[in-house]
């Protein structure tokens, strides 16, 4: 709140004052006595030195999708073979620029989502509503403390964090215009800044909604909720929410509860808004990740579809209209050329929508959306149920038009054998189409390239009808943050070599081979007693598989942040807690100060915390932003094969010994610490490669011998099991004989001798000279 004091004229014995105006923008009562570190609210250049350090070791490796630039009217400029564009840009900088733009898109999405949520929550609960994440969480906002340098106590405190985020995004975007930033390294430094800003926005959004909407607060026993195409009870009116912003969905539930009819109307969701609906109320259901969008909407099960923001198919409104599903769009991010009825009276809107006069509208008021959605659903459901005719026959007839041109398969990002399946369907064999269902990502590129306009995705749905009907899984509702006590709990086990590392499955659903590989990876790492985390679409897809006992991994493994458990943190914005857990470790174990102290903490994480993220189906620009933010904080990320299309990796070079020198903080000496972690951003071609890479990337220079022993034993064992041989680089990760797994010692010692291995010391590692502690 601003304070203003004006004195026109004051005459007294001690002062004469005329025309005094005292203006104070904000008065903050400061209760946090932690000293402010070097970079509170860092500008683009404040952490540049750290970025350059990272980029020197992990050089950007570009895989251009397009080697032209067409951003100004001089274009198209051909940038191949060392040629420059009309503005002087070369291909590397052009790629850096595009990566930065992608990261900014992602960061802007999360920032806007956070702003929408915060505005909504403040309106409902007030600026003074407390931020509280439960009794066992003292470190409520690790990233906000770290980056912004504030300790938020109320919702209102988060506003200035968002002001900062929005300003940074503007400045960064400006640098991508023609005639601004010139060098790829600094484009990447800016991308890292955008990533960090993105992560901060995630945290703001999630701690605000956890506090104000009473989501689970780091509860390892957050309830198991329903997930799957078959969990929606079609006999009831169905409201489907798609997107990421829980505000309209939560208002639907509020209205149903107020009217006492919650339970008689189905509230289901697709993508992250579904996660957050179940965090709000366990009665809500998750249809599935992004990749279920088209197929479910086409089923026509939803009476009303409420769209908020992010990851919504551009054509989904048209698709909904075709099956008679009414549509409400709710945010400024998606208006879809629909009439704005925000200010119209509820009854009028309901009449317009239900009658079909205006089957799709824009209402920018969550509470109103709640009421309208429910009323429309109740009104139209009975007649829609009665008139649901089977279009199955029609769809299967269309298949007969197939002329086996093969364009469907060529245009499929996952190279699925669609042509064979459609051909088989033509001969009345639907099995192949049904098999495709499991791996299909619902992008519908096959359809749009079909010269006969066969509705292939619909045909897949019809073929897999039985499967879809029985698709009922359990997922643990997103628990949000990791408790401080859990961090303490695992500290000992990590040091003593009982927990080999932390593996987080994050990102979207653009998998090379369906979600099963993701489940297999998560299962394998949990079985090996890694701490396994999941978020967003990955957290849903991990649930979309049952073992021989009919259990999903969430039923099989506990939800604690501990060895051999699987934690669902929640939606996209809950990714903040994965980064946050790493930050907490630095604060809890080493008492490193967080406040505006990014570089020191990132250095700590890079050198000490064995956490790796696997974004097996990374697709959206948001995934690029989240991953880049994790990278700046020192957390490596492995992308699935499609991730190569993000155009850039950050790769380390084992063969360049000089890149792996660190300071020993205890002596100030520069010592070789081995290639750990070897890469910051890596694209794995296969599941097997992702697994051994993850097992390798959890190694850190500070590992105790016991810790390194367990990490090595898993790395070597996985490599042996998946590739049939001992990895040819394991010796690079052996510092002394105590690092060797006892059960392989003799065998490995022999190889070490052949490779002329020499022991090295285990340093107290840091890349920062100022971290060297000199004895007084």
């Amino acid at each position, binding site marked *: 709140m601003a304070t203003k004091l004006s004195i026109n004229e004051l005459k007294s014995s*001690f*002062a004469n004052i005329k025309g005094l105006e005292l203006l*104070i923008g904000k008065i903050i009562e400061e209760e946090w006595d932690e000293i402010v570190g070097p970079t509170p609210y860092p500008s683009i250049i404040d952490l540049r030195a750290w970025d350059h350090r990272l980029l020197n070791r992990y050089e950007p490796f570009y895989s251009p999708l397009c080697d032209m630039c067409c951003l100004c009217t001089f274009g198209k400029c051909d940038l191949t073979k060392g040629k420059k564009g009309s503005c002087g840009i070369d291909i590397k900088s052009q790629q850096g620029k595009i990566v930065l733009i992608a990261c900014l898109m992602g960061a802007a999405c999360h920032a806007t989502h956070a702003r929408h949520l915060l505005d909504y929550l403040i309106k409902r609960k007030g600026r003074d509503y407390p931020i509280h994440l439960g*009794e066992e969480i003292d470190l409520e906002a690790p990233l906000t403390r770290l980056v912004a340098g504030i300790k938020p106590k109320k919702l209102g405190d988060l506003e200035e964090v968002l002001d900062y985020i929005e300003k940074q995004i503007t400045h960064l975007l400006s640098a991508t215009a023609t005639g601004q930033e010139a060098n790829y390294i600094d484009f990447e430094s800016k991308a890292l800044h955008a990533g960090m800003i993105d992560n901060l926005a995630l945290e703001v959004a999630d701690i605000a909604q956890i506090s104000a909407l009473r989501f689970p607060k780091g509860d390892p026993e957050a309830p198991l909720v329903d997930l799957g195409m078959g969990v929606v009870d079609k006999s009831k009116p169905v409201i489907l929410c798609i997107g990421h912003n829980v505000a309209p969905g939560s208002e639907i539930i509020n209205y149903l509860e107020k009217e006492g009819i919650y339970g008689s109307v189905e509230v289901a969701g697709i993508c992250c808004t579904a996660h957050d609906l179940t965090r709000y109320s366990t009665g809500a259901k998750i249809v599935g990740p992004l990749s279920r969008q088209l197929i479910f909407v086409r089923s026509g099960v939803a009476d009303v579809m409420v769209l908020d923001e992010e990851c919504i198919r551009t054509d989904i409104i048209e698709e909904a209209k075709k099956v008679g599903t009414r549509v409400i769009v709710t945010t400024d991010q998606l208006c879809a050329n629909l009439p704005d009825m925000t200010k119209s009276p509820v009854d009028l809107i309901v009449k317009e929508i239900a009658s079909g006069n205006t089957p799709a509208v824009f209402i920018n008021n969550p509470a109103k959306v709640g009421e309208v959605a429910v009323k429309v659903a109740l009104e139209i459901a009975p007649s829609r149920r009665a008139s649901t005719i089977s279009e199955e026959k029609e769809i299967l007839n269309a298949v007969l038009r197939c002329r086996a041109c093969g364009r469907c398969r060529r245009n499929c990002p996952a190279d699925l054998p669609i042509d064979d399946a459609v051909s088989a369907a033509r001969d009345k064999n639907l099995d192949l189409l049904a098999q495709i269902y499991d791996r299909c990502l619902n992008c519908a590129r096959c359809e749009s390239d079909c010269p006969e306009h066969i509705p292939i995705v619909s045909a897949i749905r019809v073929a897999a009808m039985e499967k879809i009907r029985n698709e009922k899984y359990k997922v643990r509702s997103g628990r949000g943050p990791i408790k401080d006590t859990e961090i303490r709990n695992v500290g000992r086990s990590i040091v003593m070599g009982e927990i080999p590392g932390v593996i987080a499955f994050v990102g979207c659903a653009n998998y090379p081979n369906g979600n099963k590989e993701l489940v297999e990876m998560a299962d394998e790492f949990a079985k090996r*007693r890694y701490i396994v985390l999941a978020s967003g679409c990955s957290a849903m897809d991990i649930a979309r598989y049952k073992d021989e006992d009919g259990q999903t991994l969430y039923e099989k493994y506990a939800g604690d942040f501990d060895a051999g458990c699987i934690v669902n943190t929640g939606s996209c914005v809950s990714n903040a807690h994965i980064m946050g857990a790493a930050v907490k470790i630095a604060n809890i174990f080493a008492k490193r100060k967080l406040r505006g102290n990014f570089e020191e903490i990132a250095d700590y994480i890079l050198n000490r915390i064995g956490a790796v993220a696997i974004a097996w189906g990374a697709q959206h620009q948001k995934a690029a932003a989240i991953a880049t933010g994790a990278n700046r904080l020192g957390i490596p990320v492995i992308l699935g094969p499609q991730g190569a299309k993000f155009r850039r990796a950050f790769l380390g070079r084992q063969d360049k010994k000089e890149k792996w020198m660190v300071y020993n903080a205890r002596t100030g000496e520069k010592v070789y610490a081995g290639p750990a972690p070897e890469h910051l951003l890596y694209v794995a071609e296969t599941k097997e490669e992702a697994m051994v890479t993850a097992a390798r990337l959890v190694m850190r220079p500070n590992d105790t011998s016991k*810790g390194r022993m367990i990490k090595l*034993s898993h790395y070597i*064992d996985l490599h042996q099991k998946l590739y049939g041989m001992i990895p040819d680089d394991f010796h690079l990760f052996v510092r002394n004989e105590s690092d060797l797994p006892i059960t392989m010692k003799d065998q490995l010692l022999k190889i070490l001798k052949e490779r002329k291995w020499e022991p090295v010391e285990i340093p107290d590692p840091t890349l920062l000279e100022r971290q060297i502690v000199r004895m007084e």
Partner: protein
Amino acid sequence: MSDSCDVFKEKTNIIGLEKPEFPVDVGEMYEGERIRKPDMYVEFGGMNVERKWELVLTRPIEEIEDGKITVIGPDIQEMNPGGSYPIGILVEVAGEKVEKDLEGVLERRIHYFTNYIEGVMHLNQRYDVWIRISKRSYQKGLNSLVWIGKILAWLYKSSFPVIEKIQITIYTDKEKVEELFPIAMEVWSKRDVRARTLKDEEVNEFYACVMCQSFAPSHICVITPNRIGSCGSISWFDARAAYNVDPKGPNFPIPKGECIDPIKGVYEGINKVAHEKSLGAIKSISLYSMFDNPHTSCGCFEGIAFYIPEVDGIGIVHRDYKGSTVNGLTFSSMAGHTSGGTQNPGFNGIAIEYLRSPKFLQADGGWERVVWMPSQIKERVKDSIPEHLRDKIATEVECKSIGELKEFLKSKQHPVVSQWKVEEVVKAEEEVEEEVEEKVQEAVLPAQAPTIEIPGQGGIRIILKNVKITAEKVIIKREKK
């Protein structure tokens, strides 16, 4: 199935260091593997079996036949699939440097080593053992306990070079298991007595543990017979064994040096090592005090001893205690004051086992000063609480606030209460003085109020004309009390 394993042959080949051929894989990565009932071939011990045990004993070197594995009673292949059987595992070791004190340390390795075997799950220890063998591993050839003996023997020898000879006998014969049980009980009881009665004064050296320096670079744990590592996992015996096995490892001896203060537990040798290993951050450590240079913690301490000034007593809380303690603070919020290798008087990271130590916070009054602890912990260490204090220490059941605690302590006549009276008298006197002062001020103020001349007296006059003062924000810091 391997033909080298004849269950009726008592003696098998001597085992060297080289990894022998086993029918199943053996490796660290199998640790923690769970075997569910449907996947289990047979199980030993566990809830369905009354008698089960495992024991490590040191022997004179000539009494041991190295590598001898004996199974007494039915072997796996003679058992009914799905059955539960009694078991006794006796590991006998010898070596010049294998001291009796090493037995406990070696015995706990049975758990880890057995778990390294693919398809074998081992839980608990001593008289509470539970072993499951998976169907898959049985089918792969793990059809005899001789294999388990062989694997154990090999792992012991590879992990502990000090072991010169080892022989292992596995009992499944019900009567034999029963017959030997009292002997095992006696060994454990003697071992426990020794561990609990061994005093810091009786040993020549303590041990350091710098394992956690990988995360908390300025922290060092000092481990003595009367002070187990704060994580509760490394006793003086463990540290000593670890040092013997790996002299360059994270556990190393600290020569005690001169005892500067026997009550607080201040030793010249400790101070020297702590100063050096904490890179000068720590100058002195009192082993048995939470007020005067308390021992530091990394972050994984099991519990916290915290001072409650309102009653001049000490509270205890452990990591798993949810919700607020009696002072309104949670474990998490107090842990912030306790961790990271810094000394914060009034907060002390401790292992639960330390509550059983005869020197438990002895400089601060020990148990006489403890006023509150969670019921779960109280129950766990009940036997170590002096009898006259047992019902005087409150738990969350009796007291949830300081007010309730005060009443409780008073009603129970807890020893700390006798200290209050002295203080209350002093405090009361102070309060009277304060009140007098305030009254004086109040009386004077009105007379001064009309003429605020204070700044003007020095001849300064402030003139402000058309001034704009703009501040984006003003941060007001509270002064520390």
